[in-house]
């Protein structure tokens, strides 16, 4: 009992002592504050002056009379146009992105965060896209170092089912052919830059633009941040808007390149794929990537990691997080960070138009190459391939496969191509990751 009382008394004494110390420290702080306040004497201001100063700090004033000393997020001087009307135009463009995302359903998951990020990045005075603004912080946190695209790839891997590809491996060639969209556009972009006075792209910039043809948003962003960060905003916006426009861009090309009989080709039913095959496949592809193209392993490694966890079947919690929570969080950050690159001084340049034009060219070339590859494959003996699934070789998963299915059913209501088209579709993801790896290895 006695010992207990002593303990309590000691405890109280300790508490008292510490609180005395704390109050001393607080008193010290207060004194320092007072001293600071004394140094910074406050001058009374007349009401008119107060109002005038406030009016100068408003957005209207900043848009009408841009601050001549204002610097962009890279610390460079900005032209007056980019500070005033440019911002207004960009804000209107972000409204257009909202419209496309909400009313037309164009990839709303990405276009809305990108659009809103762009809106915030174009606000004068607040400087949110600068290195100390929150958009700038998100950008340098995960986009400048390519973390976000890799995390997205993990989630996409956890959502991908390689079953259709495993049951008909040769359809992977279609996914390879569609990568012609990337390299064909590279040649086109360089030729344009070389033989016309319109644009001036370096080889690196041309490569970053042409990767839009892979129809793979995260890969485009991954490459753009490495090869041409100054074009990131336009490349990401072009890439995601064209991915959303797959159902509009692809069908005319598919119809133009196929005959009616080809569109009605029925493909043989798929064989059953065992669980062990699905489990071995990610490791197999990763080992191949390690041996052939280590530069592609960040993308392929993350992709196969996600897929392996899913197919293992023993870590449903992790694979579930990757497919939902993780990819959703990263999508928000990725969208905002890309949006921060929609600042007027980076987007309202002549190159943006060229990027948009080359992007759609890349997309169409990829689609066409996939369809033509399917027709070439049909010249060889073996089971026939419906050329409509060739267009799914561009990796917009699963949109491109759905388009193949839809077009196929227009001609034969009982011809289900969806699962057959998923094979080239997921092979397209691998193909564009390989193409990205080649680009990185060239410019290293």
């Amino acid at each position, binding site marked *: 009992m006695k010992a207990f009382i002593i303990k309590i008394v000691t405890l109280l004494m300790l508490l008292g002592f510490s609180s005395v110390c704390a109050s001393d420290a607080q008193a010290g702080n207060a004194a320092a504050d007072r001293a600071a306040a004394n140094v910074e004497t406050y001058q009374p201001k007349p009401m008119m002056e107060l109002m005038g100063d406030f009016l100068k700090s408003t957005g209207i004033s900043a848009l009408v009379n841009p601050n001549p000393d204002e610097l962009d997020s890279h610390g460079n001087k900005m032209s007056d146009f980019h500070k005033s009307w440019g911002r207004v135009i960009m804000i209107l463009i972000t409204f257009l992105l909202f419209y496309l995302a909400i009313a037309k359903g164009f990839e709303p998951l990405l276009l809305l965060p990108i659009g809103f990020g762009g809106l915030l990045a174009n606000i004068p005075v607040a400087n949110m896209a600068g290195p100390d603004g929150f958009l700038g912080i998100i950008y340098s946190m995960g986009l400048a170092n390519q973390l976000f695209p890799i995390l997205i790839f993990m989630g996409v891997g956890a959502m991908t089912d390689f079953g259709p590809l495993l049951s008909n491996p040769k359809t992977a060639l279609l996914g390879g052919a569609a990568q012609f969209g990337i390299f064909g556009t590279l040649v086109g972009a360089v030729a344009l830059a070389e033989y016309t006075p319109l644009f001036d792209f370096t080889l690196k910039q041309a490569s970053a633009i042409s990767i839009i043809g892979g129809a793979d948003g995260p890969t485009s962003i991954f490459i753009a941040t490495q090869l041409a960060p100054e074009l990131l905003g336009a490349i990401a916006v072009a890439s995601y808007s064209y991915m959303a426009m797959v159902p509009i861009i692809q069908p005319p090309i598919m119809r133009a390149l196929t005959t009616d009989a080809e569109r009605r080709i029925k493909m043989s039913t798929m064989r059953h794929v065992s669980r062990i*095959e699905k489990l071995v496949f990610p490791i197999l592809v990763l080992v191949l990537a390690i041996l052939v193209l280590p530069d592609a392993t960040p993308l392929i490694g993350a992709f196969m990691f996600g897929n392996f966890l899913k197919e293992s079947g023993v870590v449903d919690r992790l694979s579930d997080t990757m497919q939902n929570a993780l990819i959703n969080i990263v999508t928000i950050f990725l969208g905002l960070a890309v949006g921060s690159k929609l600042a007027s001084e980076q987007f309202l340049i002549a190159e943006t138009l060229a990027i948009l034009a080359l992007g759609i060219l890349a997309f169409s070339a990829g689609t066409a190459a996939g369809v033509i590859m399917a027709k070439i494959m049909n010249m060889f003996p073996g089971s026939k391939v419906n050329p409509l699934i060739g267009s799914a070789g561009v990796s917009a998963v699963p949109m491109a496969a759905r388009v193949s299915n839809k077009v196929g059913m227009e001609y034969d209501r009982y011809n289900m191509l969806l699962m057959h088209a998923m094979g080239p579709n997921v092979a397209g993801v691998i193909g564009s990751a390989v193409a990205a790896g080649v680009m990185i290895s060239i410019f290293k």
Partner: protein
Amino acid sequence: METNLVVESIKFMMLGMGTVFAFLGIMIFFMDVMSKIVHKFFPEIQPDVNAALRNTQNENNQKKVVAAITAAIKYHREGQK
């Protein structure tokens, strides 16, 4: 000599498409090999189709029994009125 960037880009294209096709080609080859090996050494135990069929038959039988009992009860009740 001024480097012709277009020629450079065509070289990139050949290298790139070559690598993509080579990679996918090797991948297809190993996928075939892998599925052969897997089917040879780890044949998946197919779910017993007959058992499943029997189950559904059982279910059907049970449904018939339930229907018969229901009908009988209904008949019985109506008969008592």
